[in-house]
């Protein structure tokens, strides 16, 4: 026996990467996201103009050599604003995703593992959050944050927006994690750990958490796209990023009246949101396939 079996020579990460690579759309999306992230990270170098610089004599210019994506309703360079706007949109998206994943995972884990009254309590909480009209909560939260008068919670900083979006979008993650945890806690490896005297914390975070990673990652990627779109809705409610700071959300909102006269003002920010959302979804798709040991690769 000189030829070792293939699987024996591979670490789980190698296995994962091997599976992920086979997912063409996911790989392409990963490349695209990488590219977009680079563009945004190097915005000051790539931008051709000042993102705030208005030129009212140069409004609604179609795409040209001077303005690669044309100019907007105040004569600002759209390409520049897309680059700078992406910084905020993606940061808000990532932050909100982090908040939502941490909240959702913890609630799902505790709820599924402990069961009983803790489960009932946490799941009722989840249902309450699911049933409250979102707009209503947003207005109330907006008023609350405003009344606190804390400097970092005021209009213009992204932290409150990410917090609010995250706080209102963890429910799906929590339910998915709970369902997986419910099944996992009865499995042999968990019982073995318990028999060896492992504490609840050890079981939860060292044994169950890695096994529920796949639903968490999938819901996280879905949440990111939702957060980017939600952001523009929040500035409508008077908190969050305010004009003239560009974000993809606020660049897209209110452009419907310009659709016939200056379609590029809507198309480019819309396209960026679309590309990021679809890329993230495909990456999530690829991750799920690669992480799920039972899943047969396509």
């Amino acid at each position, binding site marked *: 026996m000189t030829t070792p079996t293939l699987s024996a020579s591979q670490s789980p990460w190698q296995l994962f990467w091997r599976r992920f690579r086979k997912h063409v*759309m996911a790989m392409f999306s990963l490349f695209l996201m990488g590219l977009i992230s680079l563009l945004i990270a190097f915005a000051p170098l790539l931008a051709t103009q000042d993102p705030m610089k208005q030129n*009212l004599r140069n409004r609604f210019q179609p795409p040209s050599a001077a303005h690669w994506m044309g100019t907007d309703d*105040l004569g600002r360079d759209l390409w520049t604003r897309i680059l700078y706007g992406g910084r905020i949109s993606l940061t808000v998206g990532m932050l909100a995703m982090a908040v939502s994943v941490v909240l959702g995972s913890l609630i799902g884990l505790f709820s599924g593992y402990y069961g009983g009254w803790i489960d009932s309590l946490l799941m009722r909480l989840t249902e309450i959050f699911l049933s409250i009209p979102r707009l209503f909560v947003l207005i109330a939260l907006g008023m609350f944050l405003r009344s606190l008068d804390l400097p970092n919670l005021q209009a*213009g900083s992204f932290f409150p927006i990410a917090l609010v979006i995250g706080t209102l979008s963890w429910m799906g993650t929590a339910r998915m994690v709970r369902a997986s945890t419910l099944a996992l806690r009865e499995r042999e490896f968990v019982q073995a750990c318990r028999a060896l005297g492992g504490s609840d914390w050890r079981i939860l975070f060292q044994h169950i958490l890695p096994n529920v990673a796949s639903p968490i990652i999938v819901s996280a990627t879905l949440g990111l796209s939702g957060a980017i779109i939600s952001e523009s809705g929040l500035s409508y*409610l008077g908190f969050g990023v305010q*004009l*003239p700071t560009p974000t993809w959300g606020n660049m897209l909102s209110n452009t419907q009246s310009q659709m*016939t*006269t200056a*379609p590029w003002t809507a198309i480019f920010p819309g396209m960026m949101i679309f590309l990021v959302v679809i890329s993230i979804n495909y990456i999530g798709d690829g991750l799920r396939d690669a992480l799920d040991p039972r899943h047969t690769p396509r």
Partner: protein
Amino acid sequence: MRNRNAFLFLMLLIAFLLSACGSSTPTSAPPASTAPQSSSTEPPAQASVDPNAPISGGTLIFGTPQEPAILNTLLTSSSIEDAVTSLFVEGLVQVNSNGEYEAVLAEELPTVSEDGLVITWKLRKGIKFSNGAEFTCEDVRFTLEGVMSDLSQVSTSGYRDIEMLECPDPYTVVATFSEVYAPYMRLFAYIVPRDAGTVDEMETWAYNQKPWGTGPFVLEEWTPGDHLTFVRNPYYREEGKPYLDKVIIRILPSREVGIQLLGTGEIHALWDVTEADLPALANLQKVKYAATVTGENELLVLNFGINDGSAPADPSAAPHPILSDLRVRQAIQYAIDKQQIADTLLYQNVKPGTTVLPAGPFACPQPASEFNPEKAKALLEEAGWKVGADGIREKDGLRLSLKINSTSGNLLREQTEQVLAEMLKAVGIELTIENLPSDVFFAGGESDGLRDMGKFDILMYTTGPGLDPDSHLYSNYTSYRIPTLENDWSGANFSRYINQDVDQWIDEAAVTTDFATRKELYCKVAAQINKDIPRIYLYERLSITAHREEFRNLRISPSFVDFAWGAQDWWLSK
């Protein structure tokens, strides 16, 4: 599954992009303006070969994104309801295109007694409602009873000063006032027929849903959520009018849809278009628009009092740290290029704002404010504001940073705010933007509203006097109308502007019947306001109705809610 959804999404997006590109003809040219303030009164009725001679017949379709709920003038609460009722409701007087009152159901404007307390009207004889009943003094009396009823939604201001309304004969109305009410004319601008029902049952009248009147049209059918059909009033007083057989008011899902339908010719006119929609209209074939100034300004309200929500009744006791200084307010006015805003953002369709009273019989034009950033800088220097490290001025550790609030979701306002921020930055003033949904923005003090409580630096919205400036000036500029906790947040003097002379002139004008004297007083008020700068008038708002070329003789009333003003003269060319 997700892959398939994503694919569908992609296809949809492509289709969407293609359709958008296909129909676009990029342009930044101003829309072709037509008859911005038409003043023709009668259509030239000549030989039939004349293309401008009115043709009788045809069905006109008017689109609107709002739907009326009730068509009883005494109970209406929205502008669309007021607009639709103007198809069939008339008054003793109406406003003509110069903003002056002219007799409609009265033979002439009323005579007023020496002391200004007794108003006598002579009614036209032989006027009939669309149900055949004759119009008499009893209808005027009934209307007054209706207004004074607890059920009525009409403001009783002015009406409650009518001590007695007598009908010595069916065609004479004598109204006796307990005190002089100078804008008395507006009290007689509509009539509710006496056989509508009894006043105590006003809310359940059949009239509310199936009204009639003396106007050119009468409601035939109303399909809620879809359309209202009006037909010719058979008893209309002018021979051969109205020209149209039918007017259909079609309820549309949105203004954007309306603009598309206007382009395809499915509707003949679209009511209540905004200035920001004009470029989209310019792209449509055979579509024009009619517009008139409304007497309202898009304006900035500057807060004289402290902006912490304590709502001081006298701002000199708790002044705004920045805006209480007149020099700063002057500097802001100098820094704003109003002409630039009107020319670019509004496509040269509006005039820069100059006065609180821009239109109507009491119009008081004032010299336009000067755009002069150098003067602005000099004034700020003089006031002690020195340029700091980041280009924003400072004084005693305080940054010259102000916040502007307006209603969110309004593209034009968002554009204006950003342009203002840029203009103010050029003289060293920082302007941050924070917009709120309109119900939050306009909320009263009892629900923590920022206007009433003075929790703002600068507000931007639209307001202005109606045809008679009395109530607007009184509530917006007198010291008695500063909203505070003590007065239950009543009043609209959000700037907390106090000027004894202004108070006195407004009081005096309200009890003066002589037109010229009143106007002189109001013009003194307008001039003084421009010296003290509690508000900055950015541009004069328009009331715009877009229409197809074949819809002729559409005119916009200076009293902008009655869109059917002159509906008897509407006609459709072939």
